[in-house]
């Protein structure tokens, strides 16, 4: 009885903790709403979500990886590579579906490659994915000869620029991806293993779980989702450029951590990540809307992120 009560109040606390960053997001939005009438408009909300779609989707894969106590620094370079491959294959074959498949496939293969090195050879994820980031960005330059590849196909462009009713298609993709992975993490055995590997890899292995397999799947997923993000981005830009995606890994990781997922694994989830992605997106857009000078934007962004994590910590004393 006492214990059930305790468990319940525990859950309430968890809920509050989980929503700490969400509350901060609301506060930040409120401030921007007060500062400019252009912030809280339907069109701007759509704008923010559409802008969030690329990093948002990458951040889902990154969340899975980080939940297993790993990290994937190659995601940004996959965006450049998969974009170029999909646009290039489409250009050469004239077949948009082949192009899309090639882009997704490229991401998947790189993810598998990372995953196999990390799981089977027990290499440190940081250095493996950093090295593959360097390698892949080189491959992209070689493949594109350093030039952008123009995208003209309307089906392809639809992925980045189309609408379903009033909703931009990238937003639909974003929400579908979050839905799927929310489900996978919460309701499937694979999801359960992602948490247990991150929480205690040895215990999971001793429980007879094929830890390697699940880790490989996780990195492959991260690669695949980066491939999807690459397609959205190149469709949005009507071009695949070789430097696309540079630096996205840090944005994605930042979003994941802001969303409450621990770099040491085992704790967190994709809902928090979406909040993190939106918080970063809202900051950028909000500061652009209230016209903060670019030099001051970084200062403001740094301070706001710090204040956000401090408040989150104070809400959240238990974690101490």
């Amino acid at each position, binding site marked *: *009885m006492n*214990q*059930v009560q*305790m*468990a319940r109040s*525990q859950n309430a606390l968890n809920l509050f903790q989980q929503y700490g960053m969400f509350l901060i997001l609301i506060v930040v939005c409120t401030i921007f709403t007060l500062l400019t009438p252009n912030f809280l408009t339907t069109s701007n909300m759509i704008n923010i979500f559409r802008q969030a779609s690329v990093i948002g989707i990458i951040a889902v894969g990154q969340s899975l990886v980080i939940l297993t106590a790993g990290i994937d620094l190659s995601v940004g370079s996959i965006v450049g590579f998969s974009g170029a491959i999909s646009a290039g294959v489409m250009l050469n074959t004239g077949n948009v579906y082949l192009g899309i498949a090639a882009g997704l496939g490229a991401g998947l293969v790189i993810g598998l490659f990372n995953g196999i090195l990390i799981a089977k050879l027990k290499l440190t994820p940081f250095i493996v994915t950093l090295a593959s980031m360097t390698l892949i960005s080189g491959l992209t330059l070689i493949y594109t000869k350093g030039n952008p590849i123009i995208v003209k196909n309307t089906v392809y462009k639809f992925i980045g620029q189309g609408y379903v009713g009033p909703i931009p298609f990238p937003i639909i993709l974003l929400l579908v991806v979050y839905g799927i992975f929310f489900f996978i993490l919460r*309701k*499937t*055995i*694979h*999801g*359960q293993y992602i*948490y*247990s590997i991150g*929480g*205690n890899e*040895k*215990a*999971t*292995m*001793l*429980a*007879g*779980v*094929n830890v390697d397999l699940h880790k490989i799947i996780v990195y492959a997923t991260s690669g695949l989702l980066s491939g999807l993000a690459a397609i959205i981005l190149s469709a949005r830009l009507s071009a695949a450029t070789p430097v696309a995606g540079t630096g996205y890994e840090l944005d994605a990781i930042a979003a994941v951590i802001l969303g409450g997922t621990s770099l040491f694994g*085992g*704790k967190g989830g994709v809902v928090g990540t979406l909040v993190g992605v939106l918080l970063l997106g809202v900051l950028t857009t909000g500061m652009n809307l209230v016209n903060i000078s670019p030099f001051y934007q970084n200062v403001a962004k740094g301070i706001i992120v710090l204040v956000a994590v401090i408040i989150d910590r104070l809400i959240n004393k238990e974690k101490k």
Partner: protein
Amino acid sequence: MNEQNQGSTLLKLSGINKRFGANQILHSVDFTLEAGQVHALMGANGAGKSTLMKIIAGEYTLDSGRIELEGKEIEIHNPAQAKRHGISVIHQELNLVPEMTIADNVFLGKEAAIGKSNFLLSRVKALTLTKQLLDRFGIGLDPSQKIKHLSLGHQQLVEILKALSDDSKVLVMDEPTATLTSGETERLFAVIRSLRSKGIGIVYISHRLDEIQEICDHVTILKDGKMTAEGPIGEFNNDTIIERMVGRNLGNYYPESTRQFGNPLLELRQVQKQGALQDVSLTLRAGEIVGIFGLLGAGQSDLMRVIFGAERPDSGQIRIEDREVRIGSPAAAKQLGIALVTENRKEEGLVLEMGSDQNMVLASMKQFSRYGVKAADRIQKTASAHVEKLGIKLPSLKDPVKQLSGGNQQKVILGKWLITSPQVILLSEPTRGVDVGARSEIYHILSGLADEGKGIIVASSDVDEVLGMSDRILVMFQGKIVAELEKRQASEDLLMEFASGAAVQTR
């Protein structure tokens, strides 16, 4: 398993050799387990018991030797394979996922799936089954509680439930009762008896000799990685087992106490901590050993942590040598001459990658340095002296302490605090996993410290230990001190009665 298999050979190990680096740990060990047998595997700390068991669990691979299961030779290369052969292990060191719930941990690796799918997770089934298991042990825990919120004793129970729910042929229990109180131990024994009757073979490792006599049918004894004796339990008594384990007889197990107590060293007045401690008052005098006894989760650990500054009380007073103090951190507690031997050695006690020497001086580095520079010679000398004094079995002081056997790790932690020469020593489960020989030595050491005028508090789930060691015993129940007994008043029955809340002492 049917009863007809009872008595047939289940698992046969022959000529098992295992070495780590240049160190030969197991020397051609033979071991035979029959169906429906509870087989004690005995040996001093570092004898190689866990290593042998980890080989059949698939955690280590053997160098040479043969494993037969039900007459067929098998190979075991990883834990998954061991499980498939029907071998389960309750690990000596807990292997739980702290961020996950009890149910999730119990069903880790054998998750129930929804319907015919093999990927949709069914939490309901795990919760129900876990609840049933918990009830069987009379534990009122909510199966959806996270492991990280459980006391060590409860975590150990979860580790047990995990293996029990495996439905295996061979069940290895590596010191399952090290932090269990007699109540839980009795329930575990009931379960063991029922498994035995189903023809399951159980390997039982424990340093509590009484348990061996009570539950085991057969015994195999290891000394320094070699088998020294084997036979039905009837052929052995405590003395012969000890003789075969350590090669000599133990004298007086618990030291005699004829101490005079001095002034109060430590005093708690109405200390309160929400959800853990209620109105706790106690006094510890110089030269006194106070035992604290309680069932799992009664709050002994919280009490220790509060005194040591690892947790802050909500209200109440702590006094040291009759002065009120505020202990804000373990560093502050150490300054006041307080030491705490923590109960969870992997989590709280050791820096696993560091050597035994470094671990032993960690709490007294300043003492072994000048202008911040370490005095390497003195560190080595002191560490070696304590290795000697505590009988720690290790290949080298420099090797990562994670390579030591569980009992030897425990001794390293004890050494760490003895080196700080504290006035007040708090110990949580001080002999968890320590073999009989060393245990007796530790008792004598503690007794000697009390003779020197130090104050000692021992919180333990082992009734014998509490009864044997303490000058005075406090019993806790649901965060309260419900009884205070002088040594001569106390008995196991009385302690159990108070600890279970069946009686409250009027003070």
